[in-house]
């Protein structure tokens, strides 16, 4: 019974603890940060979208760097020869015609890339939305 009475004493002592007040302007700061807060879906979308766009851009730049270098180095050599400018223009035209022929295949490849990127983005959003409602790990 003594333990019960001691427990009651502890309970009432804790229950009687006064509430502390935050510093002046706390409410105003919170309301201001609410106004600044971006829409959650937008905030959730922005970061993974930026990462995916950056990653795919880097990959495309890396893959096309070799071809661009070859064209530029060949074109520079050609421009130094007499009548090189005309030859260069013809070369560019021929390359463009060749590229147009491959456009369908290229578009199909880009569509595949975009679909893969969209799937990755969708998966990321699902993981983020599930994680948003998970309680913090109880390690403390």
């Amino acid at each position: 019974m003594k333990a019960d009475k001691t427990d009651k004493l502890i309970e009432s002592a804790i229950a009687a603890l006064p509430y502390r007040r935050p510093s002046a302007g706390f409410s105003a700061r919170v309301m201001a940060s609410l106004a600044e807060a971006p829409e959650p879906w937008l905030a959730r979308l922005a970061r993974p979208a930026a990462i995916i766009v950056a990653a795919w851009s880097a990959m495309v730049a890396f893959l096309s760097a070799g071809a661009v270098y070859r064209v530029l180095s060949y074109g520079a050599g050609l421009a130094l020869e007499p009548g090189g400018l005309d030859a260069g223009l013809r070369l560019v035209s021929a390359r463009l015609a060749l590229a147009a022929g491959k456009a369908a295949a290229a578009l199909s490849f880009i569509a595949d890339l975009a679909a893969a990127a969209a799937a990755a983005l969708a998966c990321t959003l699902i993981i983020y939305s599930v994680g948003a409602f998970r309680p913090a790990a109880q390690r403390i």
Partner: protein
Amino acid sequence: MAEAETELVQSCLGGDNSAFAGLLELYQDRIYSFALRLLKDPVAAEEAAQEAFVKAFRGLSSYNKAYPFSSWLFRIAHNACMDALRAGNRTVSLDGEDFPDLPDLSAGVETKVSESLDSEHIEAMLASLPPIYSEVLLLAYRENMGPAEIAVVIGAPEGTVKARLYRARELVKVKLYRGGGATV
């Protein structure tokens, strides 16, 4: 839930953001005090309380009205405080829920405890406890929450809450019996 509180929540859900100021006014002292007693630092406590209110505002649409609004808000505050403690590397292992052997306090403890229980002393006592124990004591006795409600707030099973409450009370008794400064 109080009627005024219900109306404020409904107004917020209806898109009236200014109604959140009313909820903020109702809860700011409680949430700040809770954070302060866990984090023991006024600046960190204000930051955690602010984060909790901002998260509550953003996530208000996910609030389930079947549960008390206070439990939902305290759960967010609990998470913010745990994040702050973790960020400050003030971690306490829960492996085995460290609980030392306590002495038999049957003789004389009541007198000792009743002599030591002024608010300053109990405040210091709570501050000296690991956060997992001070938290359940505050939620149970200062916020009048039952074990089931505390379980929702801290995201632990109800049995764990009851065990922590028991252990927390025993730790307080030992500390008070030993004069408050003893490390258990």
